[in-house]
């Protein structure tokens, strides 16, 4: 193993969190930083050539390569896990920018109660309403504490939307059920595609409160507080699973890299596959006394390298964060039988449903942008009264026009048509091609004692190391929530003038092949005491005080809202804690 000269900070993973931390530390300290990224670099010019559905949407050009490393999954601990041979239900990215390059850029905050989901649920409905085998716990921080960091994240990406609650004042047209905001969005909502307009009228007529989706795609040219200027969205429709060819969709490469490139003390090494976080075994791991010494990785030529560092930032997406800690032997793996151990617990995904329906008029759905459209939050956990419902919490419904691409979109047919090939099928598919719409629901996935992560005993990656194993399934709370949201969606679709409606099937068992969302949370969760979580609320490892873990792996539970704004807000908060407190007096911050 080759040992390189020591650096002050090593950052594992060049996605949203790793690059945001690099940018902050690069701007506010004189530290030398090394960012290690397993994939390659990306350029905006490559995203113009990337307006190709086949290679990007179906051959997954921007995604993690499962032949190198994947994960395994089983529905419960009595079964053998099988490898996810091709990613399907979630799509981790790779390369500089990570999943932040191909995302849909929905940018909602979590509802305030999500941070205190255990105590708020007990307070509202009593302990007897907590689902069997749940493992809900509070985060150790509150919405009020994180609000200023949300605002910073929204300025960073130039979020577009309309506030529904400014310092407690409800504003019609925004999401009146959202947590309070200190100010209006930096940019107004982007233009409204036809499907969203239909959805908005129908939702309003049903008594709901539709609002423009809050997204990190620009409605006008914008210069953020770092001086990075990006242009307005062109609605090209090559958005999700693609990078943005004009830079309107905020991505780490167009929002953070322009700043980092000017920072002489930050260097990004691509093709660096991290194997271990190396720590000093001589110290007592129990009380924050142990010290990380650096990181070992394989470089693109296959050589093993040791990069010593004083501070290690683990920011490699939820599943890789967990796997690296497990492989490095840092922390106590969670044991579902005894409830002991913290590493790997509270794995959550997101409850998703998609109701398709058919109109007698065209939608011009080749045009679009990520999550452009409207949503309503009347059925979300904080807004809804669950007293007489068979589940706790809830979800939001939205109709978005991300740009339909023909390989994916051709052949979406009403259930009344059974042909799947041949002339009859072709003609029906041509007729319905541009008349098909959809409403997506996303609901909260609460954590359970039986959903967790550990190392797989059978399957290995291309380097011969164990894959991460997901033990994960839906429970009654999610199934009943999904059925409820599907029924409400069908009512809205009817009010939109749909001629035929295909309700999504009930949730059943967790399915790795059906795309849901790339929002996987938990495993290295935060908690206010070391017996309940891997990191403290500053995302600092409870046992190794010079190791911080960033990203959704630190979420004790999922909210119905997508995680990226919360991930960025928490990263800002950790950056402040490192700069203002940790560097002045290294040691545990909580």
């Amino acid at each position, binding site marked *: 193993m080759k040992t390189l000269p020591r650096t002050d900070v090593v950052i594992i993973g060049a996605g949203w969190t790793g690059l945001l931390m690099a940018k902050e530390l690069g701007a506010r300290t004189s530290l030398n930083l090394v960012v290690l990224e397993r994939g390659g670099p990306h350029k905006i010019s490559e995203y113009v*050539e990337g307006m190709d559905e086949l290679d990007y949407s179906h*051959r997954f050009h921007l995604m993690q390569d499962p032949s190198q490393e994947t994960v395994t999954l089983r529905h419960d601990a009595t079964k053998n896990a*099988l490898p996810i041979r091709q990613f399907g239900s979630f799509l981790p990215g790779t390369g500089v920018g990570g999943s932040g390059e191909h995302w849909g850029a929905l940018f909602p905050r979590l509802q305030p109660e999500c941070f205190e989901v255990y105590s708020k649920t007990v307070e509202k409905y009593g302990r007897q309403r907590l689902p069997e085998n749940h493992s809900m716990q509070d985060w150790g921080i509150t919405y009020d504490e994180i609000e200023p960091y949300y605002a910073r994240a929204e300025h960073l990406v130039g979020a577009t939307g309309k506030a529904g609650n400014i310092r407690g004042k409800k504003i019609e047209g925004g999401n009146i059920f959202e947590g309070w905001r200190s100010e209006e969005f930096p940019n107004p909502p982007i233009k*409204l595609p036809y499907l969203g307009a239909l959805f908005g009228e129908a939702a309003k007529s049903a008594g709901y409160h539709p609002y423009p989706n809050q997204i990190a795609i620009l409605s006008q040219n914008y210069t953020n507080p770092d001086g990075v200027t990006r242009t307005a969205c062109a609605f090209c429709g090559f958005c999700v699973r693609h990078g943005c060819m004009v830079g309107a969709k905020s991505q780490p490469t167009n929002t953070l890299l322009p700043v980092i490139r000017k920072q002489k003390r930050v260097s990004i090494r691509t093709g660096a596959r991290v194997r271990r976080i190396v720590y000093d075994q001589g110290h007592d791991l129990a009380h924050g006394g142990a010290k990380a010494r650096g990181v070992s990785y394989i470089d693109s030529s296959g050589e093993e390298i040791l990069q010593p560092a004083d501070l290690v930032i683990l920011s490699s997406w939820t599943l890789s964060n967990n796997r690296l800690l497990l492989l490095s032997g840092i922390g106590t793996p969670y044991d579902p039988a005894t409830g002991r151990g913290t590493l790997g617990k509270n794995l959550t995904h997101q409850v998703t449903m998609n109701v398709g329906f058919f109109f007698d008029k065209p939608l011009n759905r*080749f*045009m679009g942008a990520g999550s452009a459209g409207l949503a309503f939050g009347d059925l979300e956990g904080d807004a809804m009264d669950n007293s007489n419902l068979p589940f706790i919490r809830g979800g939001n419904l939205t109709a978005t026009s991300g740009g339909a691409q023909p390989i994916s979109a051709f052949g979406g047919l009403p259930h009344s048509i059974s042909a799947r090939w041949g002339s009859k099928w072709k003609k029906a598919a041509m007729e319905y091609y541009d008349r098909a719409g959809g409403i997506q629901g996303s609901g909260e996935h609460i954590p359970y004692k039986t959903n967790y992560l550990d190392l797989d005993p059978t*399957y290995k990656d291309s380097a011969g190391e164990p894959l991460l194993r997901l033990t994960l399934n839906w429970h009654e709370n999610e199934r009943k929530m999904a059925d409820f949201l599907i029924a409400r969606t069908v009512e809205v679709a009817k009010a939109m003038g749909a001629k035929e409606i295909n309700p999504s099937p009930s949730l059943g068992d967790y399915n790795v092949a059906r795309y849901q969302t790339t929002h996987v949370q938990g495993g290295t969760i935060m908690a206010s005491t070391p017996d309940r979580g891997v990191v403290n609320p500053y995302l600092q490892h409870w046992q190794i005080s010079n190791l911080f873990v960033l990203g959704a792996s630190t979420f004790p539970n999922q909210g119905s809202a997508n995680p990226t704004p919360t991930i960025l807000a928490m990263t800002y908060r950790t950056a402040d804690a490192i700069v203002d407190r940790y560097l002045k007096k290294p040691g545990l911050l909580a």
Partner: protein
Amino acid sequence: MRRRQFLILSASSIGGVLVYSLDRRVSRVFAQEKSTQTLQIPLRFFTEEEALIVAAVASRIFPTDDAGPGAKEAGVVIFVDRQLAGPYGRDRHRYTQGPFDENAAPEFGYQGKATPADTYREGLKGLQGFDRLSPEDQDKKLESIERSHFFALLRQNTIEGMFCDPLHGGNVDMVGWQLIGFPGPRMSNFDDIDKHYGEAFRPKIASLEQIIGRKIRGSEDEEMK
């Protein structure tokens, strides 16, 4: 009467289409000229016999009919040939370590060992002479394999070959996009996204290479020497 032999080799049976050859030279062949010319399309993966069968299957999945052109005009078989010879066909990016559980529940996705190339090669053995059957008998044969993994690939790859960007060798002359009014990649829809509510807006169709004015290599060419 259309002949159902593999159409790439005989110009008179192709119709007016563009055909991309291996080195990306483009030839245009016009049926109405009653040319006796034959076009030699080098195949990357299929034998000639296999290519004839795949072309015939794709034509039953996505037929040429009174609604417009189909898999034959789109050059689907050429598209599939290239895909199977490339990283997709060889499962370059799929996790292919064992053990394999071929009987896994569908919630686990495809768990088999066979690559797409293996699946075609094996499946085509069961379709020998398919291209010489009557359309009715062809449909009967396909109905008998409709639930197989092989058929799922045939159907998916046919749709891909109909609607992919022409840079991949399918969707020749953008016939697939013309069927559904998909304009291809457009640099901006800014002025139109919130207009045309309820009315069809059908801009001029153009491919990615036409839009950006240079050649683009698809993933199927990644490892070609």
